[in-house]
């Protein structure tokens, strides 16, 4: 870019949240710039996750956003003809102990009361839905409209839609500072020049706190790595995206199975390395619920960096300490589905409109003032 440009809005971070925000802002006719420091959009968590697009197995506070997002995912696939392999074969959240069964039953009631089509299934019904689960699985909550996609293609597709509507995407462009005046951000300083602007969207994922610090603010998030692995292709043994026994497994259209989750959960920081303990654990925990995995091999593992919030629930809000910045981060490993809904909400908030989706449970005000997130995660190494 030339050394000084101007755009109505600058979106910082080209993951699924940022690309979605850029899309909705451009759709509303604003001149939006998306600034991404990597060589392409979707290179971090948005391009490394298992591609799950699910409303199931979430904290109720996230469900309205998830439901709104699924409608948008369907729009991107069906109306805009996005070819990112989005299929809706359902999501099963599994219970392997009696206590988990009771928890699922309560969750199903609660999520249904919010309007989600989720059903508690056991016995023959579960067997019919998912014939190859082991005896260890006692019950499941099933959401039929859930599914999965290729997150790399999906993120790029939405970015391209944003660009087609007039958004400018600056790649290889790290943000190095934010200029403020009178309680507002007036410019975004990048490695390649300055962008004057009226509003900023902070969708920098685990780096969102670095952005907050630039305006003298803070966000209660920590970076935490998580690992995923993929098998060689095998005959179809699984139709849905399943999670339970601390792992998740999902089929792909090429016959490979993705396996993730499972820890270690005491590792924090900006690392994308795989560990032997994790890949062993994926295999062990995965085979306990889907024994058919014994018919294949692990082919490759990779990792991504999550932004974890104190309660592992997503944050969508105005940034404190400044009038014209909004933020979405802290998705704690389940943010991919929420991208389009969050993007729409961020665009609405930028323009001073009340969010059309209920995000009251996602606001920063739910955290007590002075909360030290480092203390939270020292005491709670639970699986996600």
């Amino acid at each position: 870019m030339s050394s000084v440009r101007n755009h109505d809005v600058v979106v910082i971070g080209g993951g699924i949240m940022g690309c979605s925000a850029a899309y909705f802002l451009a759709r509303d006719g604003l001149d939006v710039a998306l600034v991404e420091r990597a060589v392409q959009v979707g290179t971090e968590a948005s391009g490394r996750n298992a591609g799950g697009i699910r409303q199931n197995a979430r904290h109720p506070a996230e469900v309205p956003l998830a439901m709104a997002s699924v409608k948008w995912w369907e729009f991107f696939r069906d109306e805009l003809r996005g070819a990112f392999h989005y299929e809706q074969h359902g999501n099963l959240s599994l219970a392997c102990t009696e206590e988990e069964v009771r928890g699922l039953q309560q969750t199903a009631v609660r999520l249904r009361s919010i309007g989600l089509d989720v059903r508690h299934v056991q016995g023959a019904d579960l067997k019919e839905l998912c014939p190859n689960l082991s005896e260890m699985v006692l019950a499941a909550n099933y959401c039929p409209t859930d599914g999965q996609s290729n997150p790399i293609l999906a993120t790029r597709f939405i970015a391209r839609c944003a660009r087609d509507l007039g958004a400018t995407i600056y790649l290889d462009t790290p943000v190095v500072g934010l200029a403020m005046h009178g309680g507002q951000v007036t410019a975004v300083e990048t490695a390649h020049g300055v962008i004057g602007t009226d509003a900023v969207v902070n969708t920098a994922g685990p780096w969102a706190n670095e952005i907050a610090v630039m305006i003298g603010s803070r966000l209660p998030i920590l970076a935490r790595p998580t690992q995923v692995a993929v098998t060689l292709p095998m005959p179809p043994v699984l139709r849905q995206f399943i999670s339970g026994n601390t792992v998740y497994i999902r089929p792909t259209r090429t016959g490979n199975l993705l396996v993730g989750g499972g820890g270690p959960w005491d590792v924090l920081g900006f690392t994308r390395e795989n560990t032997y303990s994790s890949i062993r654990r994926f295999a062990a925990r995965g085979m306990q619920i889907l024994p058919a995995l014994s018919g294949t091999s692990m082919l490759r593992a990779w990792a991504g960096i999550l932004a974890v919030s104190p309660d592992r629930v997503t944050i969508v809000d105005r940034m404190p300490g400044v009038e014209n910045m909004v933020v979405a981060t802290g998705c704690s490993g389940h943010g991919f589905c929420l991208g389009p809904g969050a993007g729409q909400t961020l665009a609405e908030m930028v323009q001073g409109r009340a969010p059309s989706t209920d995000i009251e449970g996602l606001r920063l005000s739910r955290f007590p003032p002075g909360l030290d997130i480092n203390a939270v995660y020292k005491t709670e190494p639970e699986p996600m």
Partner: protein
Amino acid sequence: MAAGRVLDHPLLGPLPDVPAVTFRFNGQPVQAREGETIAAALWAAGIKTFRYTGPGKEPRGVYCGIGHCYDCRVTVDGVPDVRSCLEPVRADIQVQGAWERQGPSADKVNGG
């Protein structure tokens, strides 16, 4: 057992006598020579396609022959993804090769 084999090599000389070994490939009995690889035994038996892959159900068998490409992979006594070009035959092993992947064709990149 002679089909496809070099019985008398101009430099290495005649093929030495070794015991015959029988194993099964997709349920069919296959005669092999002790010490040779599963892939060599299958070729000698006239079996060049070990499995199928992809939406077009393309045949696959030996490609690189040196344990590099994994095209020749088979399941041996339940252990998946064994490179048949490297794995020696053993008596009575059950080797499974072909399976047909069902499901929608994998879209590659398209204009969408």
